[in-house]
Every structure is written in C-alpha cells, then in structure tokens.
C-alpha cells in the first residue's frame, strides 16, 4: 500500500489478524507438563486467543507462543495443574 490509489473503495479489510504476533504482549508464558496432562482440552476450550492448539482428538495440547498473550486462563482452568505460568525473561525469547 503506497498511495491513495492502492486503497480499496470504502474501508473494508483485506486479511485476517493472524500475522499480528500478539505473543509480544505477554510477561508470563504457559508451560504444559505432558506427564500431568489428561487431554481434557479445557485449556483449548478456554483460550480467548486460540493459542492452545490441538490438531486432532488424542493430541496433546501445544502452546502457540507467537500469539499467546499470557493471560493464564489455561493454567487456572487446568484440572490437573499441568500448566505453569513462568516469567517470560526466564526463557529464551521467541
């Protein structure tokens, strides 16, 4: 998008927000301990940012660190305390 000539007529959108890396927002990150996880998928259900990924039934949930905002809902909702929230500085940056 260089000039006004490149704009669409009227202000409609051209793509989804997927390319926005909201992972940069967080100060805490969830870490899933698979040994405790029972694959109830509560974390997947309750993530407002779709940052807990489960591709197929039976898979263990994985965190999408590009988008996870570190809200901690997954950790709070996990019935087995399998998810810990750790400070972002304590891990390598993405």
């Amino acid at each position, binding site marked *: *998008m260089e*000039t*006004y000539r490149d*704009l*669409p*007529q*009227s*202000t*409609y*959108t*051209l793509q989804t927000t997927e390319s926005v890396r909201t992972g940069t927002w967080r100060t805490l990150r969830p870490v899933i301990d698979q040994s405790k996880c029972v694959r109830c998928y509560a974390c997947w259900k309750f993530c407002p940012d779709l940052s807990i990924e489960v591709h197929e039934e039976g898979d263990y949930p994985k965190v999408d660190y590009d988008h996870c905002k570190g809200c901690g809902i997954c950790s709070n909702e996990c019935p087995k305390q399998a998810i810990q929230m750790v400070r972002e500085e304590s891990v390598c940056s993405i």
Partner: protein
Amino acid sequence: MLDLMTANAAAAKAAMLARVEVIAAYPITPQTSISEKLAEMCANNELRAKYIKVESEHSAMAALIGASFIGARTFTATSSQGLALMHEMLFWAAGARRPIVMPVVSRALGPPWNIWTDHMDVMGERDTGWLQFFCENNQETLDMILMAYRIAEDRDIMLPAMVIEDGFILSHTFEKVDVPAIEEVDFYLHPFNPDVKVNLNKPRRYGSLVMPDWAMEFRYNNALAMERAKKKVVEAGTAFKKAFGRDYGGLLEEYRCEDAEVALVIVGSAAGTAKVSADRMRERGKKVGVLKLRAFRPFPSDELLAVGKRVGTIGVFDRSYTYGQGGAIFGEVRNALFPLAGQVRTKGYIGGLGGRDVTENDFEKIFEDLLAISSGGKAGKEIEWVALKDGSLRW
C-alpha cells in the same frame, strides 16, 4: 403517461420505477405521504420491496446502510428534524460508500416549530459527503430521483444522494407530471450490482478502524469520488434526455444568461418564480438571467466561473443562513468566483426562511438592486434579508 400529482407522489412513483428493494419509512411532515404512498404500493404488489417501519430516522438510515451492504437498492425520505436526527448516519452512509437515494422534503428546524420550506435542514448536511440535488418542480423531482440512482450507483462514484423538493410548495402541490413507463426506466437504470458488498465466501470487515497513517487517504478518495460525480451528473442528464426527452442542463441551468448583465444564483422551487420575474424584467428591456444550481454537491465551481467571465454582477439567493458569511450558497459562489475578484460583483440575499413566500415582486426588486450595482452603484449591504419586517419600506 401524463398525470397530475404532488412532488411527494412523484417521488414515490420514482422509487417504484427504480425498483427499489428495501425501504425504511418513518413519518415527518411534509414527507409523510411519500412513505404512505410506498406502503400502498408495496401492499398492492405494485412494488416488490421490503418495507421496514423503523422507529426513528436514525434507525432508517442505519437499516439502509445494512441493506445496501447486502447489495439491495435502498430508499428512504425525510425532512428537517428527521434529517438532523440522521446526521450521524449520513456521515456513515457516505463514508461507507453506500449509494442510498433519499428525497428530502425541505423544512425548517425548530425551535420554533415550523413545518414549512426552508433549506437549513439540507444545508446543515452539506459536509457529509452526500450528493445534493435541488428540484424546481414535481417533474424534476421524479426525474432527478431516477438520475440520482444512476449517478450514485456508478462504480466510480458510489456516494449517497439527496434529492431535495421544497416542503408544501412542491410536496403538496399538484402539477402535471409525465410518468415514464417502467420498461423504459429499466433501460435507463440497470439493477444495482455493486462491487463492494458482503460476500460470504470472502468474509471482510466493513467499517474497520483505520489509523491516522491511512485515514486521510481514504477521505481523499471520497473527495475524488465527489469530483468525478460532476461529469456523471452531466452524463446521466444526457442519457436521460435521450431516453425520456427532457433536458435539465447538467449541474447548472443557465436561464437567459447569454447576454445578461446580472444573474441570480438560486436553488429549488423559488427558481421557477425567479425565472418568471426574469421574463418580466426582460420584457422591460433589462438584461437579467437566472442561474439555477441543480447540484449543490458536487458544487459546480467551474461552471460558475465560466459564467462569471461573461456576467459582471452575480447575486445569490439563499433559503438558509449559516451564521457565518450569509447563506450557504453565497459563500461557495464567492469562493468559486474568487479568481475573478475585482471583475465580478456579488451580493447575497437571504429570504423565504421558515416557509415565507418569495414573490415575483421580491425577485424583481432583487434584479433591480443587482442592476443598480452593475451600473456602478454602491452595493450597500453585502448580505440583505429579503422582505424582513424591519420597519423599512424597501420590500
């Protein structure tokens, strides 16, 4: 087919001929009979449209914006307080580039309550991005609505349009109107098929939040669309003449201005009265003319400038007042004529507010005043209120 009808009936007929698909209706004097006529037409299947009985004018405009985004041809009508209530959504309709066409039956705003014609309602909306067309008579009202759809829905324009008919003077007065056959209108107006509309296979957000880095450019594009509308108004008029035989002269009608010494810029029904006065003056050998603006938005600055090069004194009659420099049209005319500052003399007249009748005698006095200025007399007041009860015997 020749018939006798009010401008409101003509407007409803035009909506039917245009095969509008979604109508939002809310009553307000003097527009109400447009909504009533359309209700009858829909109830009798004369018009196959969805008729939404909205609960306010603000909702009327909102509903039509939604309908237009689905790709439906939309219509509503209002006046005065209703137009003012829609104000927020008028900006939305124009900004979203939805070609809604709306007759506005011009009426003063309160306080005090006043149901008669005045242009303060439509002039209050001149910054919204809507096209604004003024009609002199009932025939022009019907014809202009058809032209308005053609102009507004053009894929390079896509701006909403107001077609203004003066309250009671036109809306409730019977005149001869030639109603075209709907089959002929189908050739002139194709079905509404916008490029930009909701597509379930390509979901988009219509509206969005644009940051300052691109907001101006979107606005610029809307400004360019308004500029492009000038050519489109002329084109739609030429095509209309070809299809139906009536020629309105484009953005601006010059009446007896070829060799005029003075000319009066005017809009709406009073233009007809001014033309009668001009004829009387001409019979007495006075070289006067009338410049009837048909389009106020887009504003015909080039056309006015061209006239200004030939006619040395130009008066402007406004049926509105801005609390700034006189009436709304006066300021814009002077702006357009500024390159000729020093060569052209101008004067503004405010009159007919709140439905006050403007007579042939009033216009003759205006022409006399302009002629006096033209022959070197002092302009006196730059802006004069016509037939004001100020104790003077001037009018």
